[in-house]
C-alpha cells in the first residue's frame, strides 16, 4: 500500500494529465496483479461498499485522539475532509518496523473483513491501523474506508496509463475494461496480457480529428485539391466489421453497438475486414435534428417505440480498412473512391440510402465563393457547417492540422471540458448551472477558457447537476470542482488576448452549443488551437476582404 499511497500523492500533486498518466503507468508496471487490479478498481472511480459510516468514524477519531470532541469537530470543520482530518490529527506514527500489507492484502484481509465485525471490534481494528500507519498511509486507508478516491482521474486515463505501461493499444485496454469485472489477479493479468491481434477483432483505429479552419479558404490552394462534405450534427463513430461480427465505437472509444441495433443489422451485409468512419444521425427520409438523436443517447437499451420514432443511420465518409487491409495511409480521394465503390457493390447500383452504407455526400464546388454560399445554407439544412478534406491527405491519428478542417457556421466553436460548477440564481439557485470550461495547454494542464450559463435543456441541466453532485472533487465556497470528463461544445462571438485570464485569452459571449457525450476529455481542443483563432479572425470576412 506504500506504493499506492505514493501514487495517490503524485496524482494529487499535479494538475497535468500527462503527469498523472505517467505516474499511474509507473505504478502499474511494478504492481503485483492483485494490487494492480484493486488500483484499477479505485482509480476508475469504483468504491468498496460502505464499511463504516461517517458518524461512526468521527466517534472513532474522537476516541483515538487525545482531544475533546468539540476540538476534533473544529478540526474537521477546518479541514473539510474526514480522511484528511484523521491523517493530520493523530500523533505521527512511530516507526514500528512491521511490514505494511500490499494494497491487495489491505483490501482483502483488512478492509473487507470489517463488514463482519460489530461496531466495537471495527473501532478497535480501525484505530489500531490508524496508529500503525504514517500520515499519508493513514489518509489513504481512511479514504478507501469511506468511499471513492476522487483524485481526478477517469477510467479513460487509467486505460491510457495501462496502455503505456504494457505497450498495448488504448482501445484494447478500453475493451478489456468493459462490462463486468471483479478486481482479481486473474482480471489484471487478462487486462495486461500482450495483444496477439487474434482476439482484438473489435479494435477501431484512432479517430482522425479535424481542426477549426483558422485561415481564409483562398490560402488553401486550388479548390480542386479539396473534398467538401457537410459537417453533420451527430455522433462520430467507427463501424468495425470483422469475422462476422460488428462493433460500433464512439469517439470516446466506447463500444456502443447495442445501442444502435439498426446500424448493427445493416452492417451484417458488410464484407469482413471493413472499417468505416462516419457520423451517427437520426434518419427518416433525411437527417433528423440533433435533438431527436439526443433521445437515443444515454440509453443502453432502446425500446421498439423509440427505435421507430428515431431510427439512426451511420453516414459514412471514410473507409479505413477494406479486405482486412489498413488503408489509412492512402490518399483521401482514394479512400473516398474505395468507400463509394463498396457502397455500389453492396446495393447493386440502387439508391445508396436504401443500402447498408449511406454515404455522406460530397459537395460539388469549383471555387471557394461557391462553397461559401453552400456553407451559408448550413443552418437551414440542419448541419453545423462544412468539412474540408485535402484530397491527398492520409487518415492520421488524433488531431493533426492540415488534412481535415472543420468550417463551422458558428465562427468560433471549440470543444472544452467542464472543470468547475457553481449554483445558479433565482429559479436555478438549487441547481449547478454556471459552468467553467477548460482546454489543455501544451503540457496537458487544463486552463480555464470560458464560463457559460446557457445552452443546455432543463433535462440536461438536471442530469448534469446530479453528475456534478456525485463527482464533486473539492468544494470551495459555492464552487465545486469535478473530474475533467464531460465535454461540451462552446460557441462564442469573439476572442482576445487577456492577461487577467489564466489561459491568456478571453472569449466573448461564450455559450454551450451541446453536451458532447460522444467525446472524451483527451480529444478536446487545445489552448494552442484556441489561440490560433486569435490570428484567424472570422473566416468569412477575411475571405471576403481578400476577394475585394
Amino acid at each position, binding site marked *: 500500500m506504500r506504493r499506492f499511497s505514493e501514487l495517490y500523492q503524485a496524482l494529487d500533486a499535479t494538475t497535468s494529465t500527462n503527469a498523472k498518466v505517467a505516474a499511474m503507468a509507473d505504478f502499474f508496471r511494478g504492481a503485483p496483479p492483485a494490487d494492480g487490479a484493486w488500483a484499477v478498481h479505485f482509480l476508475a472511480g469504483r468504491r468498496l461498499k460502505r464499511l463504516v459510516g461517517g458518524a461512526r468514524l468521527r466517534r472513532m477519531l474522537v476516541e483515538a485522539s487525545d482531544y475533546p470532541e468539540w476540538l476534533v469537530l473544529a*478540526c474537521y470543520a*477546518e479541514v473539510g*475532509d474526514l480522511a484528511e482530518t484523521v491523517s493530520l490529527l493523530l500523533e*505521527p506514527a512511530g516507526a514500528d518496523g512491521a511490514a505494511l500489507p500490499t494494497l491487495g492484502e489491505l483490501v482483502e484481509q483488512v478492509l473487507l473483513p470489517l463488514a463482519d465485525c460489530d461496531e466495537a471490534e471495527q473501532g478497535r481494528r480501525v484505530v489500531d491501523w490508524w496508529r500503525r500507519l504514517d500520515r499519508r498511509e493513514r489518509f489513504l486507508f481512511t479514504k478507501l474506508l469511506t468511499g471513492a478516491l476522487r483524485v481526478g482521474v477517469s477510467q479513460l486515463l487509467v486505460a491510457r496509463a495501462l496502455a503505456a505501461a504494457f505497450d498495448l493499444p488504448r482501445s484494447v485496454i478500453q475493451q478489456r475494461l468493459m462490462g463486468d469485472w471483479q478486481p482479481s489477479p486473474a482480471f489484471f493479468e487478462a487486462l495486461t496480457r500482450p495483444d496477439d491481434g487474434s482476439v482484438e477483432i473489435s479494435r477501431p483505429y484512432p479517430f482522425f480529428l479535424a481542426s477549426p479552419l483558422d485561415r481564409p479558404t483562398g490560402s488553401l490552394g486550388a479548390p480542386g485539391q479539396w473534398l467538401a462534405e457537410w459537417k453533420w450534427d451527430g455522433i462520430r463513430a467507427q463501424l468495425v466489421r470483422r469475422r462476422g461480427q460488428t462493433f460500433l465505437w464512439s469517439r470516446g472509444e466506447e463500444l456502443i453497438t447495442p445501442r444502435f441495433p439498426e446500424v448493427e443489422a445493416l452492417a451484417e451485409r458488410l464484407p469482413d475486414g471493413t472499417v468505416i468512419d462516419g457520423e451517427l444521425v437520426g434518419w427518416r427520409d433525411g437527417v433528423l435534428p440533433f435533438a431527436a438523436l439526443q433521445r437515443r443517447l444515454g440509453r443502453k437499451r432502446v425500446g421498439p417505440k423509440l427505435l421507430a420514432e428515431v431510427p439512426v443511420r451511420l453516414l459514412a465518409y471514410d473507409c479505413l480498412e477494406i479486405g482486412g487491409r489498413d488503408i489509412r495511409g492512402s490518399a483521401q480521394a482514394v479512400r473516398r473512391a474505395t468507400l463509394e465503390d463498396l457502397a455500389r457493390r453492396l446495393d447493386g447500383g440502387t439508391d445508396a440510402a436504401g443500402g447498408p452504407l449511406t454515404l455522406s455526400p460530397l459537395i460539388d464546388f469549383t471555387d471557394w465563393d461557391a462553397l461559401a454560399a453552400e456553407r451559408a445554407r448550413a443552418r437551414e439544412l440542419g448541419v453545423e457547417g462544412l468539412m474540408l478534406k485535402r484530397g491527398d491527405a492520409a487518415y492520421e491519428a488524433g488531431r493533426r492540422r492540415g488534412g481535415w478542417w472543420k468550417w463551422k457556421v458558428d465562427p468560433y466553436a471549440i470543444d472544452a471540458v467542464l472543470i468547475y460548477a457553481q449554483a445558479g440564481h433565482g429559479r436555478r439557485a438549487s441547481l449547478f448551472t454556471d459552468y467553467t470550461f477548460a482546454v489543455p495547454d501544451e503540457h496537458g494542464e487544463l486552463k480555464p477558457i470560458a464560463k457559460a450559463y446557457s445552452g443546455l435543456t432543463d433535462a440536461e441541466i438536471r442530469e448534469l447537476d446530479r453528475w456534478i453532485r456525485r463527482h464533486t472533487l473539492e468544494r470551495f465556497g459555492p464552487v465545486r*470542482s469535478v473530474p475533467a470528463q464531460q465535454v461540451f461544445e462552446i460557441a462564442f462571438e469573439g476572442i482576445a488576448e487577456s*492577461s487577467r485570464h489564466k489561459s491568456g485569452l478571453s472569449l466573448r459571449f461564450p455559450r454551450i452549443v451541446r453536451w458532447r457525450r460522444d467525446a472524451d476529455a483527451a480529444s478536446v481542443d487545445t489552448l494552442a488551437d484556441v489561440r490560433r483563432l486569435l490570428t484567424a479572425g472570422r473566416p468569412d470576412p477575411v475571405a471576403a476582404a481578400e476577394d475585394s
Partner: protein
Amino acid sequence: MDKTGLVPASGVAPDGIALIELTDSGLYCRAGDFHVDPWRPVANAVITHAHADHARAGSARYLAAAPGCSLLRHRLPGAAVEPVDYGEPRRFGPVTVSLHPAGHVLGSAQVRIEHGGEVWVVSGDFKRQADPTCAPFEVVPADVFITEATFALPVYRWPDTATVAQEVADWWADNARRGVASVLFCYALGKAQRLLAELAPHLDGRPVFTHGAVESINAVYREAGVTLPDTRRVGDGEQDYREALVLAPPGAGGSSWMRRFGEAATGFASGWMLLRGNRRRRGYDRGFVVSDHADWPGLIDTVEATGAARVLTTHGQSDLLARYLAERGVAAAAVATEFEGEGDATLQ
C-alpha cells in the same frame, strides 16, 4: 465579566488596574503609558516586529529590538525608532520593559512587562522551529502570557524544514527539466529570506531570482549581517528564466510581471498549505508547508513553559485555544485584536 478578557481575576497591578488593557488603539500599558503594536498612532509604541499588522505608521516614538530596527525603518520611513538589545531593560515610569527573541522574523520580539513584581509577556508572532535568519525563541516566565493563536488547531504540526526545502528543490529540478521557471510565492518579509537560507544547500552556486519586493528586504537582512545565498532581481539585465527558481510575493501572481516567464510552474509556501483544500483552492501547482508561526504543539508547549497562570489569546483561532486551555485549568480568554497572522491576504 469584562469582554476584553484583560481585567484579571488574579494578577492585578498594585494600583488595582490590569497591567495591559485593550483600547481603541490596541494593547495599552497604562502604568507605563505605552502601547504594544498599536493599530492607531500613539505616543509610545513598543513594536514586536515589522509585519504590517504589527508595525503601523504615525506613532511619535517606536521602541524595537535592535536587530529588527533597520527592517522597521525600511517599512516606516522617517519613523523615530529607538533600538534596544534583546534582554536589556528599559524603564517606562514604574514599569520595566525588555524585549526577547520570538523566532518569527529578523528582530522579532516578545515584550516582557514588569510592574510591582508582576510579569506580563506579549508574544507577538512567534515560532519554535529553527530559522537561520533570526534569533531563536526564548522562553520568558510570565504571570500573564498574551499569545498568538494563528494555527491553534491540533491538525497543524509543521514538517521538518529541511524536508520541505528538499521538496522545493525536487520540484524546481522537475520544472527545470521541463524547461519552465519555478515561481515560488511567499511573503516578502521573513518567509522569503528563511526559504533562501534553507535552500542554500541545494543551490550549487546557482542564483535565486527575486521579485523587487523580496530583493529590497534581502538587502536589509544582508546589511543586518544575515547570510543569504546569491540572489538576482528579476528584470535586471537579459535573463533566461526557463530553469530558474523565482521568489515573489503572492500579489505578483497573475500580474503582468509574471508574463516574462511564459509557461511557469507556481508554488506557494505557507502554513495554510498543510491542508489539501487550501492547496487546491489557491490554484497554485504546489503548496509547501512552511510557517513562521507556532504550530499546535509549539503553542501548547510554549504556554506551558512560561508557567503563566493566565493566558490571553490573539490572532486566528484565539477562541478555540482559550477554550482548550480553560478546560485544562488555565485561566484563559480571547482578546479581540486587529492582528492578522499568516491569514493576511492568504485566504479571502
